[in-house]
């Protein structure tokens, strides 16, 4: 187990700069998820930590030791790839034992480690099989087993669940989390799926265009997104946003947008300021009258919840409710906004406005 520290990391491919000075620390035993849209540099960052990419600028340290010039195999890390990267010509047991054999560990120790890993991952019945004889989920577990037997300082996961079907992905998500709770090995996990990030991470690092947008616990990011990008990236369905202007001069403070008045709680924003007004779907409710007027476009029942796509002026917003409201498309409705849950962002910079 170990801490990891990134200091002012930069990366260029030729003349194209893809990572622009990233720095943060991961404490011992932490599960950190790097999340962002494709091309944001998250995988590149992970691969630099793994020693698979040169580091253009800055330093990466594992347990206080700078590893910029240390070879992958001497960094004491283990990595799980999106494609699993199992050796097709070796059995499950041999796949898991490969790294230890290369290190000339003695046979008894290898057997014991492989045994332990296969117990943890329920791979016992498959030890003699070849990867081609396994299902996707089983292959994924073998890839994890290969990482576990090493007993490394840091686990690296590069989009490990992307190749699995939706149901299996949810199951494996829980397995990986349970595994981490059991082993308590420092873990860096890369994904583009914010749900994975939310459900698994101790802390999330949201990246965009080679920069960090925000670092924080999942609920931190959800409740107090630092900027518009994070606000829209975290949460599904995404936060509703409308562009408008703050009005404080007359009556109750509100934002004028999409031809309606969106309530504000005392807090930020000066009169006349151009802002982006954000409200999560679950913080909108249907009301008999008053509030923001709209028109139902689509009703999407999911069983436990219902999502309503509603047209407000020229904008569209989504409302999520636990009930099963009796509304139909084209019906006129009124929305109540809970002003305590409003997020205001500067229209120019996208930064969160705080009082």
């Amino acid at each position: 187990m170990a801490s990891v520290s990134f200091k002012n990391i930069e990366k260029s491919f030729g003349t194209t700069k893809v990572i622009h000075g990233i720095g943060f620390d991961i404490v011992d035993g932490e599960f950190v998820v790097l999340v962002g849209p494709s091309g944001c540099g998250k995988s590149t960052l992970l691969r630099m930590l793994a020693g698979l990419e040169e580091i253009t600028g800055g330093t990466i340290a594992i347990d206080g030791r700078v590893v910029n010039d240390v070879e992958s195999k001497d960094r004491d890390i283990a990595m799980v790839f999106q494609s699993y990267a199992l050796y097709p010509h070796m059995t499950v047991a041999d796949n898991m034992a490969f790294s230890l054999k290369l290190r000339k560990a003695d046979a008894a120790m290898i057997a014991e480690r492989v045994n332990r890993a296969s117990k943890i991952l329920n791979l016992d019945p498959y030890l003699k099989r070849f990867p081609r004889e396994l299902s996707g989920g089983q292959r994924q577990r073998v890839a994890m087993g290969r990482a576990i037997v090493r007993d490394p300082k840091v686990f690296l996961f590069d989009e490990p669940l992307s190749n699995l079907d939706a149901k299996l992905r949810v199951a494996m998500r829980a397995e990986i989390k349970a595994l981490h709770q059991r082993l308590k090995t420092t873990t860096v996990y890369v994904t583009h799926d914010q749900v994975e990030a939310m459900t698994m991470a101790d802390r999330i690092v949201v990246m965009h265009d080679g920069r960090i947008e925000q670092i924080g616990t999942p609920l931190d990011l959800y409740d107090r997104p630092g900027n518009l990008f994070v606000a829209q990236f975290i949460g599904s369905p995404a936060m509703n946003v409308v562009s408008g202007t703050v009005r404080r001069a007359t009556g109750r403070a509100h934002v004028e947008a999409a031809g309606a008045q969106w309530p504000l709680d005392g807090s930020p924003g000066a009169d006349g300021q151009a802002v982006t007004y954000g409200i999560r779907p679950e913080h909108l409710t249907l009301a008999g009258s008053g509030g923001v007027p709209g028109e139902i476009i689509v009703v999407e029942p999911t069983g436990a919840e219902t999502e309503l796509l509603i047209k407000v002026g020229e904008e569209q917003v989504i409302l999520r409710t636990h009930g099963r409201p009796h509304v139909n498309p084209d019906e006129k409705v009124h929305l109540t906004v809970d002003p305590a849950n409003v997020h205001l962002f500067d229209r120019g910079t996208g930064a969160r406005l705080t009082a």
Partner: protein
Amino acid sequence: MNLRKVTTEAKLLLIGIPVLIWTMLPIYHLVLFAISPKDQAMGGQLWPDHPTLHNFEVVFKQQHHYLNFFWLQMWNSLVIAVATGLITLMVATGAAFAISRLKVRGGRMAMNLALLTYFIPAAFLAVPMYKTMGVYGILNNQWSLILAMVTIATPYAIWVLKQASDKLPYELDEAAKIDGASPLQLFRLVYLPLMTPSLVAVGTYALLLAWNEYLYAFLLLSSERDITLGVALGNFLAADDSPWELLMTTGLLYALPPAAIYYTFKRYMVGGLTAGAVKS
């Protein structure tokens, strides 16, 4: 639907039957001559009146002055073909691994040069090759033929193997690297086992190329004890009254080992050679 199947089948047969006749005809001739007595060989019969294995006996016992070294020459062919196959494999595998997996500098240029060699017909290079082998001082030595054949086979072999290794997922190398494998361990423990089908195909290709070679073998080797069986067959035609029945018998025997090799490795050949053929 069914009718379409029938017509497709018919079209295939229409192509297949002529091709079958086309390929089988020379073989039929070989067999016909080989089992005919000397005086009937040229008789123009479709099947001899008295089929005989006498010709084989003459060949096996080396009872004709053209056949004094039959077994030695067969052995020469075999040694040269096997050596060519092995050396080509060693060179081409190393090159393909370095270019495709280790991404060495200049790899692209090496590939382009390899391709370029195919614009020059091998016959064109015969005289320069003869000269070169003279400079090396290995004319009339079987090594000259082995090296010449390796030279001709290698570019194609590199090309095929490179294409095949490009298909191995790069994550495997990265996984092995993180697992602690050095490039040599990667080569030995991961690359070679996964490349086996292509290696067999390419090795067989080089082996058969050398086995079937005539021009270079004829040029570079001259002693009766050094030449390959292919060249020895050519020498049959030196006389006015060539013993056709013996020539054909020897030819038939000469054609058997490649057929056996091809048959043995058939499944690798088709898979391996087409594996490298198209870039997907």
